[in-house]
């Protein structure tokens, strides 16, 4: 249904053009939008007019018109004055509101359709039938972007995304919850994954600078048929999750670039617990002090290079060797040895994943 705000804008706009006072009421005489100061005086007349067979009528110095939505009486429009000119204005405004209803319904239907597609709520046969009815192309390249805002119901972020893509009628912007904005974007034939990354970065920078919102942007893979939109959406969702767990420093995350995080994210929790028990023997890497954790991370960052790590940590090489020996003693893993280092690295990632999953369960 059209919001009262849109109706009010319409009657205000029409009044400023025609100088005719207007009022829109529902069929029970409740005022929805008006330029008249005391519309409640006409409540009973509206009720009577709605029940009558007449399409228009002059009552108490106003011309009354009926506005239909798909043959169903939706609104009563009142135009002040009984002249022919006012009659013409009233007819025009009634037609305008009726057109708004059609346009809004179409948009609303499209939005509903896309939401149902994203959430896998449609049968395959319905997807193609409804897409045809709504004039949505079925066999074009598309991708789903997911924009997660820090604050719930970030209207500035939504408005910014809408404005960036509103010129393009083939892109859809919707939301299925309060923290995520979904953009289903149609792609040109020659658009590559590099272009997708550029679009994601543009979204990030625009939301940062214009809406001043903290956001993360992720996207799925390119799909070629409308039925696969939910797949691209699920991929974007997974990319966002994997990014949050393993790549906190990245603000843009692509499903096709999740690295080892992709594998760990799919592990069942029972397997993770078994693996961690095997590696840390019931202990948790959280038991390491901060200094040890920083040392381990720096050592990994520098590709197991002792000299470079000690230089970056501003410690003597021997101090680093001592710390690595200490870790070896408590875990039986020598981080200078590639196999042990990779086991340790994966174990740290698994622990992070387990913590994330536990935080969701709680």
């Amino acid at each position, binding site marked *: 249904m059209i919001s009262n705000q849109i109706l009010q804008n319409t009657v205000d706009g029409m009044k400023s053009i025609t100088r005719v006072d207007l009022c829109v009421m529902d069929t029970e005489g409740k005022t929805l939008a008006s330029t008249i100061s005391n519309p409640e005086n006409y409540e009973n007349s509206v009720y009577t007019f709605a029940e009558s067979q007449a399409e228009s009528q002059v009552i108490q110095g106003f011309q009354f018109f009926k506005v239909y939505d798909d043959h169903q009486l939706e609104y009563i429009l009142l135009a002040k004055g009984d002249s022919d000119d006012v009659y013409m204005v009233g007819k025009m405004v009634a037609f305008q509101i009726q057109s708004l209803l059609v346009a809004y319904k179409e948009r609303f239907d499209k939005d509903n359709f896309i939401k149902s597609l994203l959430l896998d709520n449609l049968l395959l046969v319905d997807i193609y039938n409804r897409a045809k009815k709504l004039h949505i192309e079925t066999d074009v390249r598309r991708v789903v972007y997911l924009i997660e805002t820090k604050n719930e119901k970030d209207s500035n972020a939504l408005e910014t995304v809408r404005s960036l893509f509103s010129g393009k009628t083939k892109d859809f912007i919707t939301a299925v919850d309060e923290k995520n904005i979904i953009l289903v974007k149609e792609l040109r034939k020659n658009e590559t994954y590099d272009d997708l990354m550029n679009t994601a970065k543009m979204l990030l920078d625009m939301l940062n*600078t214009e809406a001043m919102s903290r956001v993360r942007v992720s996207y799925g893979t390119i799909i070629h048929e409308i039925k696969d939109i939910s797949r691209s959406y699920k991929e974007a969702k997974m990319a966002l999750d994997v990014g949050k767990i393993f790549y906190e420093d990245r603000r843009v995350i692509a499903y096709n670039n999740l690295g080892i995080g992709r594998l760990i994210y799919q592990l069942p929790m029972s397997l993770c617990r078994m693996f961690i028990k095997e590696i840390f023997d019931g202990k948790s890497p959280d038991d390491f002090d901060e200094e040890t954790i920083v040392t381990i*991370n720096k050592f990994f960052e520098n590709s197991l290079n002792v000299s470079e790590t000690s230089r970056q940590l501003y410690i003597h090489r021997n101090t680093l060797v001592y710390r690595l020996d200490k870790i070896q003693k408590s875990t039986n893993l020598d981080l200078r040895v590639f196999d042990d280092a990779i086991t340790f690295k994966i174990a740290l990632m698994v622990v992070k994943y387990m913590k994330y999953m536990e935080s969701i369960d709680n």
Partner: protein
Amino acid sequence: MASLKLLNINKTYPNGFVAVKEFNLDIKDKEFIIFVGPSGCGKSTTLRMIAGLEEITSGELYIGDKLMNDVEPKDRDIAMVFQNYALYPHMSVKDNMAFGLKLRKVPKDQIDKLVNEAAKILGIEPLLDRKPKALSGGQRQRVAMGRAIVRNPKVFLMDEPLSNLDAKLRVQMRIEISKLHQRLETTIIYVTHDQTEAMTLGTRIVVMKDGVIQQVDTPQHLYDRPNNLFVAGFMGSPQMNFIDCTVNVQGSDVYLQFTNSEISIKIPEARAKKLIDGGYEDKEVVLGIRPEDVKDEEAFIATSSESSFDAAVKVYELLGAEVFLYFTVDDHDITARVSPRTTARPGDTIRVALDLTKMHIFDKETEQIITH
């Protein structure tokens, strides 16, 4: 307009990655500060922390006198211009500039006033009714700047705003930004990895590496008196020549002997004293000399016999106003920036001399400066 104070700012991600470490900086009102460094050095992270788009792990950030750590980005009175800007395609230039203000529910008459003022400053008044597709690249960039200017912020934050432009437009916009700073008289913090942008725009430059400030100084001072090997190598193109040497003391004279070479140069007395006082006798150091301080002019060589040596020219690069000569002297690669009148060509062996008044000597282990 405002000053900024960053006190012991740290950024550590939950995975333990330290992006910024103990960042301390005072930025004065109306300064044009540049954060420069290689990618991953923490410059953008620092800027994003100032913007409020990234949480500060520890430390304090003040804009003016107000502690900003927990203030939302939109309430910090800042405006940002980032690399991947876009214009709203269906909106006019005027509406593009006004969009952010509309989101913030600024009254319409005030929006009109601010947009018109910004358009005047940027010289885009005649373009206000145009749509983005009717604008050139430079004009679009100006509109993007305009969106920041209309906010009338205390501080402008710019993160590589020119890196998506072609080389010619980048030079043009660099000049525009410099003029803009003079006109707006406001504080600007600008992130770049391009040292030319840093040198030409900044009143002060912050050189960063691995999340740590290496040096904060004026462009000229940074170039002339780098604190360490990293800064010396990062600022200047072609970069400073670095030659590994051993310090030889013979009586009261101190010589730098090029590693794996017979070449030895005598160090001026004041610098020699610093080497002796620092206990560098027989130790390895790094001699740093800028390409323009490697001379091939006969007159200079004649007066600098103690720092001259023969070198075989490998590559000759004519850039119009200057020539770069690339030599290999034993194991050491050296570049000289000389006059285009030089007769040296690849394959020639010519005599060159180092201008020892401009030399820098670094500790090989700590990479810190010993003497300029």
